[in-house]
């Protein structure tokens, strides 16, 4: 949609709304999974406020499930924190790409928005269409998308932690597969248009599977991503 409004505030508002709309699928995917997380945390002797605090300041789904499950089995704090670190290392690489989109933002915005980088927000910000060329990204759009996802995660945790909602395990499984559906749905269209991207994606899958036989999931994903993306250096011909 081409709007030629001279008022920058209106433009920024519409960017915010577009960002919120783009983030809604993540909100809907996160919310029920977060309910399950809140319920699990309470089982592990967290009170609901501690569960919500974790979602508020960690905001990393998989590692929160792992952390609480480890807590439940009596693992030590250092062990849990180390496992979290390795599982979330991949965000460093994702943050490189997202921060490249934010080059023209102020330092405050960069530091703030970087907090909200998850697999899902990263996937939508890079392959979700729209104006993802760096120059066209606005803080309002990115904040709209990322904070919408965040609210889904935090509010779902509160609902689950308070026991106000119950999500049967079948639904949690289905919603988790749904988030994989999000990744697949974002990856397939560009991979169909460009053989290079398809080769990179499939190589990364195979590499990740093979590495997974030898190292932890967190490391396997990081290494597969680094090496498979390296194929792009030779495969991508056009100027970037």
């Amino acid at each position: 949609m081409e709007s030629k409004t001279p008022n920058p505030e209106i433009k920024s508002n519409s960017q915010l709304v577009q960002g919120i709309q783009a983030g809604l699928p993540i909100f809907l995917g996160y919310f029920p999974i977060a309910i399950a997380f809140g319920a699990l945390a309470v089982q592990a002797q967290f009170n609901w406020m501690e569960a919500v605090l974790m979602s508020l300041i960690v905001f990393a789904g998989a590692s929160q499930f792992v952390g609480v499950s480890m807590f439940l089995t009596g693992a030590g704090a250092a062990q849990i924190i180390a496992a979290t670190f390795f599982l979330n290392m991949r965000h460093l690489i994702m943050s490189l790409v997202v921060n490249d989109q934010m080059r023209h933002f102020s330092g405050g915005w960069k530091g703030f928005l970087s907090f909200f980088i998850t697999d899902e927000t990263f996937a939508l910000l890079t392959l979700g269409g729209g104006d993802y060329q760096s120059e066209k990204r606005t803080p309002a759009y990115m904040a709209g998308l990322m904070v919408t996802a965040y609210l889904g995660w935090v509010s779902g945790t509160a609902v689950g932690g308070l026991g106000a909602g119950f999500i049967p395990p079948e639904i949690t499984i289905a919603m988790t597969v749904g988030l994989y559906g999000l990744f697949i749905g974002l990856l397939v269209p560009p991979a169909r248009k460009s053989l290079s991207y398809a080769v990179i994606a499939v190589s990364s899958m195979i590499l990740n599977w093979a590495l997974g036989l030898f190292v932890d999931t967190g490391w396997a994903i990081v290494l597969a991503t680094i090496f498979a993306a390296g194929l792009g250096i030779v495969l991508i011909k056009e100027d970037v």
Partner: protein
Amino acid sequence: MKILLVIIGMALVTYIPRLLPALFLDRFQFPDWFRKWLQSIPYAALGALIFPGVLLVEKDQPLLGLAGGVMAFILSLLNLHITLVMTGSILIVILLQYFFL
């Protein structure tokens, strides 16, 4: 007390990797090859996130994730909106669990 320590520790080790590129990235102008690498990361990262993770959503029933993944693949070939792709893979997994497995 241990719970708070775990939460704060997890928050720190999660935020630091996310934050690092924000602190130093604008000091560098990337050479061409690095830009190509950067441009390829979304495809590599999503590939690695999808497989084999999608098969391990329910450890005992890899077919569930497979069915959801194949459904998402087919629907995205039809160029459907991302919300519909997600919905399709969610529905097939729900149907399989309640009626077939």
